[in-house]
């Protein structure tokens, strides 16, 4: 059970949060101009890395804010959390 440092609330138990998959997948600005293949890339393709991964998390039972997290999936170590719209602090 992680201890997650919500950028708005501070450290809270994992049970207050929900995970939202891979981060930094930007919704295309002009979807109609994309081929089926390009749209499918956005829609379906997600990485599943063993190691450091950038993820979206939501403080669902707290401030309800979405934020991003740098997490090592091999040992669950959370290296950093940062707000939506910000660049990842480490890579």
């Amino acid at each position: 059970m992680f201890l997650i440092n919500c950028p708005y609330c501070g450290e809270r138990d994992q049970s207050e949060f929900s995970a939202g998959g891979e981060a930094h997948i930007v919704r295309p600005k002009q979807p109609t101009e994309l081929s089926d293949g390009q749209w499918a890339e956005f829609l379906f393709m997600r990485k599943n890395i063993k190691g450091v991964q950038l993820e979206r998390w939501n403080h669902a039972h707290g401030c309800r804010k979405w934020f991003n997290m740098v997490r090592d999936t091999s040992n669950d170590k959370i290296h950093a959390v940062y707000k939506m719209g910000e660049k990842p602090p480490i890579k």
Partner: protein
Amino acid sequence: MSKNLRIANSKFIDQTSRISFKFDGKTLYGFKGDTLASALLANDIHLVGRSFKYHRPRGIMSCGSEEPNAIVQLGNDPSMTEPNTRATEIELYEGLEASSQNCWPSVNFDIGAVNNFFSPLIPAAFYYKTFMWPANFWKLYEYFIRKSAGLGKSPTQPDKDIYDHRYIHCDVLIVGGGISGVMAAKTAAKNNLNTVLIDDKNILGGTTLFQQNESFKINNSYSNDWLKKEIESLNSLKNLTIKTRTSLAAYHGYNYLLARENLTDHLNINEKKDKIRQRLWKIRAEKVIIATGAIERPLIFNNNDRPGIILSSSIKKYIDYYGVKCGQKISLFTNNDSAYETAISLNNSGVIVNSVVDIRDKTNSLMVKQAEKLGIKIHWKSTVVNTNGYKKINSIEIMKLSDDGVAVIGKKIKEECDCLGISGGWTPRVHLFTQSGGKLKFRDEDNVFIPDKSELNQISIGSCNGDFELDEVIKNSLNSTNKFLNVDNNDYKNLEIISSKEIDKKNIWLLPSDKPMGKTKPFLDFQNDSTANDIKLALREGFKSIEHVKRYTTTGMATDQGKLSNMHALGIIAETAGVKMGELGTTTFRPPYTPLTFGAIVGRNVGEFFDITRKTPIHDCHVEKKAEFENVGQWKRAWYYPKKNEDMHDAVQRESKAARDSAGILDASTLGKIDIQGSDASEFLNRVYTNAWSKLEIGKCRYGLMLNEDGMVYDDGVTTRLGENHYLMTTTTGGAANVLSKLEDYLQTEWPELDVYLTSVTDQYATVSICGPNSKKILSKIIPDLNLSDDEFPHMSYKNGLIDNIKCRVMRISFTGEHSYEINIQSSYGKSVWEKCFEAGKEFNITPYGTETMHLLRAEKGFIIAGQDTDGTMTPVDLQMNWIVSKKKFDFIGKRSLYRSDTIREDRKQLVGLLTDDPKEVLEEGAQIVAETNKKPIEMLGHVTSSYYSPNLKKSIALAVVKNGKKLKGQKMFVPMKNKTINVTITDTVFLDKENKRLNA
């Protein structure tokens, strides 16, 4: 007691308070302080069960949580009985009743024991190999296997006991209250750290608590006396919490741990009453110190499983702690020094020690010399090649080992005994360390895995860290603790420690016998009944990975997770395969460390507390009207309102007819309501719904369909424009929370530039819906100053009104196709508005209707229910709702997906209506639809999604999804059921009032 197996000198057993208990129906006596196991042994009962596969008699083998054999069923009431408890951990109480578990019909006469004589026919994976084919015979086999294996019996009634959950946050958690744990706790607490010390026994002290031996002294006192004073000194420490009878079950990441505290399991039935039985502690610790000690290993030799063969250290605990002799003529068999400590204890208590059989050539440690001085006979460089005695050991056979240790030589000596203590060395209890993700390293000199690297803020100290000698335990524990806690505790600086040191080490994983291997039974996993031979067979059959061998032979797969067997399994695999044990790796220990009761896991979340129940503000009115309720998510919704003698069908037919003929009333408060405000609110709706919103006038309502990004229908509902920048969105009852989350997600992550604020107001408003040709008249009685003319207040518009001076919003919208109004008012007035509508509607026979009638009425009109007629694979086009998809809008959620090659396919499953040839025949929802009846295999073209008997149309109607359905209108289809085939015709989805005349009736 036939024999006197109890000695009087135990300090831990209260021999003045006798306790009576029952085992296998026989009344026996023990004392306060006993475990069930120690009391049984005091009554000379060793035989407690049968082995899993061969049904061999098995006896108590240990004194703790690692016990593989003494697994008993607690309680005699089949409704409340508890299976799979360990007799070594059950504290004796007055009236306790227990029985052997793994035997049928009784422990002394066991039908399955015949397996033992056929045992060459039951090799590794016998069950997999034999009973898996033919596959459909498994249910026959399983019945017999289960019955004769007797895997314990489940209680038949709900658990009446109370369980609890609580949280602890602490600076330091110490797991294990042996000597190193006690010293660490004192160090931490004295340095102002908020400290918690837990131990699974009823008192602290571990094995040092009863270690009274010349070879182990601290500051001139026996180690036990010294430790006792240390434990007493803990009482004065204010920031130390001690929890005994508390077993650590799981160690998760981020130092999150679960521990189970037994509060009443040791009390008698009267004392237990109305008390919390077990409490699960959820612990978040800044730092964790693991001090869980070590488990003694058995030795693996022929027939090493007979009742009366007990771990040597357990024999010591039974005599020194419980005052119980495990036998009167005890032999010991060892590869290390610790059996000598047992020999000395037995000797001091007047028990005859026949001899110590030691596989080592010779050794001269302090303790061995002490034993020799007492005249204890030692067979050096020898092994036990066989044991005799069916239900209890009566003799052992000893032979000399060859120099290389792989064979036996010389003459066989037979030694009579009634108990054999075995010691194969020690295995650090690294279970919690590995559960937490820690990596182990292998120490070659004594073949142990010890903690290496961990990502967490934790250390292991004492023998769980591989320190087995008293002086090392003390010194290393202190150093590690001081460093880890960053403190300097001087209390223990100048301790004078006398500690016997083990000088010579020797290990043979599988001890040789004078018989060929195939004729021997060297047991490895006592609980799952697998032998060293099974492991060798698995290797011969090509298994290499320890994880595979483990599953194939089931070694280490029982409820004890191989606490005794794993190291030997690894050793034998390494030896046979010719690899180093360290390279082989080890299997993973998973939580819980010992089995947890379901009660402890669920705590208070049972019955009505299992989940939240949401009730509308009008709920009491429905109860009063004798409504039946259905669960919709967490909501209780009125389903139908049966009158006297009515069943569901009758009630729904009556309600449906009343709603169309005169007036119906529905509690729609559960619909999700989201208040949307901000200067970009219109743009936001444009992006989340498929249709256009910018031109919606203030005061008007519009139906919207929401898609997922993959183009599939997600939710629907009516949204009302309350002001220039203000909307009220409604969602389905079940979808409310998810829709809000989804919208928030888009707002926060994709479109942060939009000035929009979302607020859930589902609970803030009650919604009363009245429908039918008389609804207008009823509303005019309640809000007389509202102009209800169709020009002033047309369909799909809203007005503010006042009911008794309370503001309300009235929407003229319809889910039934009837002229209808929805009154939204602050929740607290919901009930009064409902009652007012009733009063006003009396002259029109206003009829309350539930969700079932609502579903029927909307189906007559062909309106979909998202989640019933859609299943996440339906696009708006599939639903034949092209009209709601804006062609002009540049983008909305899911738009691009509507033009994918798969979504534009013409032959997708599409929503259609179905009429049965026999108008009385009502289809089953979920029934399959086919085009032909006599072809095999037959293609399933679709299924029925909604089906009802319509009292208004006097025929059965249904909605269905059918492949290429749009083009099949008028076609005959078939619905094959178990006993008949129903003929149907594909139709339009709208069955009633295609011209929508009733909306303005």
